[in-house]
C-alpha cells in the first residue's frame, strides 16, 4: 500500500474565496482566479497540487478537483483552468455558465498528488489537452530554481491548445507543441532516448496517453520511480444501486448520475476525500457484505484488493448486484 492517508476527516480544510477574474483562454477553456474573502494570503502550495471546488448547483452540491495553475510563489491568488465538457456531469458547465466575477465560493486547501521530484536532474513534461494545467505551476517553480526542463504538449489544434502562445513565447527553446489537426504527435521514443541519467518524466492527459508513456518508458528501461502521472477521473454514470451503511445504520440509493461518495454525502454521512478521482486513497472504504459485481475504476487499490471484494473507492467505483453493505 502506498503512503498513509494524512487525516481521516471529510475532505481537506476549506477556504472561503471570491471569484476575482474569469479569463477565456480559448473556445473550451476558461481561467478562474480566486482571492480570499478574509483578505489573508493563500496557503502556499507545491507545484502540481489541486484544489476541490464546491459548486452549489441549485441545491445539488458538486465537488470537482482542478489543478492549481498559478505561480506557487504568488500567495495573493489561486487560479484554475476549467475545460467545458458538454457531455460531462455538469460541473464544468456550471463553472462556465453560472459562475460570475464576484461570486463567493468555497475551495479546499491544496493537496498534491503530482509533485515534482526535486531530486531529478532534469524534468520532461508531457501534456495532453487540458492536462497542461499542473505543468504551469511546475514550470514557474523550476524557472525560479534554475531547474532543467522541457515540455511536449499535444493538443487537437493550436487554437484549442491552452496557453500555447504564452508558453512558446516565453520558453521558445523548451516548449514543443504537437497538433492533431496537423497530424503531429509527440515523438515519445526518440525523446525518451538519450535523456541524461536522473531525468524524470511527468504525464498529464487522457488515460491512453498515460498508459502509452508508462509502457514506452518501461520498454526503454526507465525506472518506474521516474515516471509520474496524473489523471483526473470523473465518476462515470451507471445503474442505480442500493447500499447499506452499517455504522450510520441507513440504507441509501445511489442514482445513475451520482457517485457512491456523492450519495453518501447527500445523505448527510461525512466521508473523507481529497481527490475525488480514485487516486489519493482517502475515501477507501471496507466492504462488510456484498452480493454482486464491483465496477472498480480507481488507481489506488491493488489488483488483488479489487478482486477480493473487501474494499471500494466510493468516489469513482460502483456496484451492480443485490446487496452491498459498507463500513461507513
Amino acid at each position, binding site marked *: 500500500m502506498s503512503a498513509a492517508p494524512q487525516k481521516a476527516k471529510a475532505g481537506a480544510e476549506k477556504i472561503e474565496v471570491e471569484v476575482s477574474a474569469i479569463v477565456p483562454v480559448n473556445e473550451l477553456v476558461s481561467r478562474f482566479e480566486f482571492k480570499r474573502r478574509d483578505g489573508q494570503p493563500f496557503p502556499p502550495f507545491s507545484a502540481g497540487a489541486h484544489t476541490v471546488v464546491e459548486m452549489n448547483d441549485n441545491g445539488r452540491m458538486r465537488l470537482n478537483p482542478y489543478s492549481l495553475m498559478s505561480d506557487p510563489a504568488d500567495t495573493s491568488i489561486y487560479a484554475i483552468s476549467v475545460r467545458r465538457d458538454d457531455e460531462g456531469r455538469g460541473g464544468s458547465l456550471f463553472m462556465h455558465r453560472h459562475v460570475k466575477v464576484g461570486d463567493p465560493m468555497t475551495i479546499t486547501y491544496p493537496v498534491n498528488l503530482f509533485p515534482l521530484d526535486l531530486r*531529478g536532474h532534469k524534468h520532461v513534461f508531457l501534456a495532453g489537452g487540458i492536462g497542461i494545467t499542473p505543468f504551469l505551476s511546475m514550470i514557474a517553480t523550476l524557472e525560479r530554481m534554475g531547474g532543467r526542463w522541457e515540455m511536449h504538449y499535444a493538443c487537437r489544434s493550436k487554437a484549442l491548445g491552452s496557453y500555447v502562445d504564452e508558453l512558446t513565447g516565453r520558453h521558445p527553446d523548451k516548449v514543443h507543441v504537437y497538433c492533431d489537426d496537423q497530424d503531429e504527435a509527440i515523438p515519445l521514443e526518440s525523446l*525518451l*532516448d538519450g535523456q541524461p*541519467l536522473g531525468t524524470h518524466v511527468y504525464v498529464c492527459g487522457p488515460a491512453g496517453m498515460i498508459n502509452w508513456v508508462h509502457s514506452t518508458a518501461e520498454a*526503454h*528501461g526507465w525506472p518506474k520511480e*521516474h515516471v509520474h502521472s496524473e489523471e483526473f477521473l470523473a465518476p462515470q454514470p451507471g445503474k442505480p444501486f442500493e447500499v447499506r451503511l452499517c455504522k450510520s445504520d441507513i440504507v441509501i440509493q445511489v442514482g445513475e448520475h451520482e457517485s457512491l461518495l456523492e450519495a453518501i454525502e447527500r445523505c448527510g454521512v461525512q466521508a473523507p476525500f481529497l481527490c475525488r478521482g480514485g487516486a489519493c486513497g482517502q475515501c477507501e472504504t471496507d466492504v462488510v457484505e456484498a452480493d454482486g459485481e464491483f465496477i472498480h475504476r480507481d488507481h489506488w487499490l491493488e489488483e488483488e484488493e479489487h478482486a477480493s471484494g473487501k474494499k471500494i473507492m466510493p468516489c469513482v467505483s460502483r456496484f451492480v448486484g443485490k446487496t452491498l453493505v459498507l463500513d461507513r
Partner: protein
Amino acid sequence: MSKFQFPKSIRSRPVYGTLTPRRGKSHLMIADAEGAEALLDLAQQDAEVFRTAHLIYIPKATGETYVEKLKALKPAQFYVGPSYEASVSRIRRVLSDAHMGLQVYLTGTEGLMGQAMNEAMTAGIPHQAIQTEHRGSVARRMQCVHCKGITEDVMTDPFQCTHCGLHLFVRDHYSRRLAAFQGVCIDAEDPGNIPEPVELYK
C-alpha cells in the same frame, strides 16, 4: 559455494536479490571477488545483455580465478581493477556519460555493492531500480559512530575501530548514504568489559 542466506534482521539492513537480465539501452555491471559467479549465472539467463555491458571487476583475493571466464562473456567494455578505490573514477565517468535506460547490476561483497549503489544514486538512479546480489565474503563496511572513521572488511563482533581504537558492537543499522553499517562502543557503560570477538554469522 559463494551464496549466503542472511538471517532476518531489522528493516534498515539491506536485502539483496538475484540478478536478472533487464531491458535497457546499456548495462553497467560492477562486481568484486565471487560476485563474478553471479555474473556468470546472469550470462546463463541471457548472454545478450553483455553485448552492451560495461563490466567493472575487482578480483580481490580471488586473483585470476574468474578473469578469463568473465572476459569470455564478451562484454562491450571490460575493466579489471586492483581495488574499489582505484575503480571509482571509472565508475563515476561511466555514470556521468550514461543516459536513461542504463541498467545497473551490483554483485559481490556488501561494501562494494553499497558504495557502488551510492555512486549510482548520486548519478540519478533510484535505489529501487538498482539490482544487487550478494556473493562471497560476509565482511562488512563499518562506520564508528564516535569518530566517524570507516573500517572495511570487518569480520568479527565486536571489532576494534582502526581509527580511534574503541571496541565496537556490530549493528545491523545501515546507512545508505554512507554505504556502511554502524558500530557502537560496546564497553561505554562498563569500560574494559569487552566480550571475546566472534566471527560474524558463525
